[in-house]
């Protein structure tokens, strides 16, 4: 059986090589933390959950099935961890969603407005703006957008991670992009 880079690392970790786990952690730290942070929108919680994720993944690594891609398996564990947290702290997350920090407030708070107004937003600013809007869409859409674009998963991989039918995944991502486009257009950011 031909093993990919991740699987080679896992094999070494299972043989007790600590440095391989460090390597694996370095590889996934940014993506996992980025995903969790954008889902819970709280740095302290994101740090805690990222730690829990790595500790958990180390603990259950012996149960990893080498027939599957490690990343999909890992993202599934990460996804469940975050969803569990969100369910337990529904009120807190809802309040964040309710805030849905009107995009204009968001822009004002982070000095996104250039001297000439919204029309002259530089490309870089538009880029940050779009990702800020992503952070404000409801969780059920945001999670899929993040898995698709932040983690770079395909529709069928997202379906595996989230336990949703591929059709639902695709529809929700389309709907999410529609919401994003409408929101951005409303603020005249495409001009």
């Amino acid at each position, binding site marked *: 059986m031909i093993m990919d880079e991740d699987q080679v690392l896992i094999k070494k970790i299972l043989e007790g090589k600590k440095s391989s786990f460090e390597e694996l952690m370095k590889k996934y730290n940014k993506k996992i933390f980025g995903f969790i942070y954008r889902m819970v929108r709280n740095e302290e919680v994101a740090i805690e959950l990222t730690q829990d994720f790595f500790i958990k993944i180390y603990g259950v690594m012996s149960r990893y099935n080498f027939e599957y891609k490690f990343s999909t398996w890992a993202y599934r564990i990460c996804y469940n961890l975050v969803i569990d947290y969100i369910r337990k702290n529904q009120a807190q997350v809802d309040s964040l969603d309710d805030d849905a920090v009107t995009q204009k407030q968001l822009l004002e708070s982070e000095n996104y407005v250039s001297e000439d107004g919204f029309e002259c937003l530089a490309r870089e600013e538009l880029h940050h703006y*779009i*990702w800020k809007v992503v952070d404000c869409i409801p969780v059920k859409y945001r999670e899929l957008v993040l898995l698709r*674009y932040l983690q770079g998963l395909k529709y069928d991989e997202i379906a595996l991670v989230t336990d949703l039918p591929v059709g639902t995944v695709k529809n929700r991502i389309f709907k999410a992009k529609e919401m994003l486009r409408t929101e951005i257009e409303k603020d005249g950011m495409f001009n």
Partner: protein
Amino acid sequence: MECLTNTKIQDYIGDTLNSVESAMARDHLIVCPACKKKYSEYETLEKHLLQPVEIIPPAIIERRVLAELFPLLPSYTSIFALVAASFVLLVTGIYIYFDFANNSIIQAIQLTANTTSNWLATLIKVISAVFSGVYTIFEAMNRVLKLLLKINLGAEIIGLTVFVLFTLLFYPIFKLAFRKLKG
């Protein structure tokens, strides 16, 4: 021709339409400014989404995970500190014990301790009892060693060794408790 739906435009960008549908969409986009505008907006959005804004994770995550999963062995400095602390503890213990035994005031307190409820007398009795008990154990261990290995280290050396070994053995627990105390 009817305008393209948002889904159709997204499918066209994602290249998931069949060749006929794709050609029809392309032709329509040439003649319909409204759809063309939507198309370019979706395209811009897609381009930006494909390059996520990176969030740098704090370095503390890796450190904490590694400390949790692979508790470090004590360093040479802490081993030396433990040996020194155990030595001081043992010597102080012996000094206190013999001083207690020889000091007339302490002896007087000890004698009256049985009949009074003085807290100091009780404390002295407890310390003496604990130390006597521990010292007796070390003496017994020394006797066993003498019998088995024909070496006489002395109860004090045995005590020091036991203290050091005990502390080293429980080092990870002490460390964890200390970290929790520190918050």
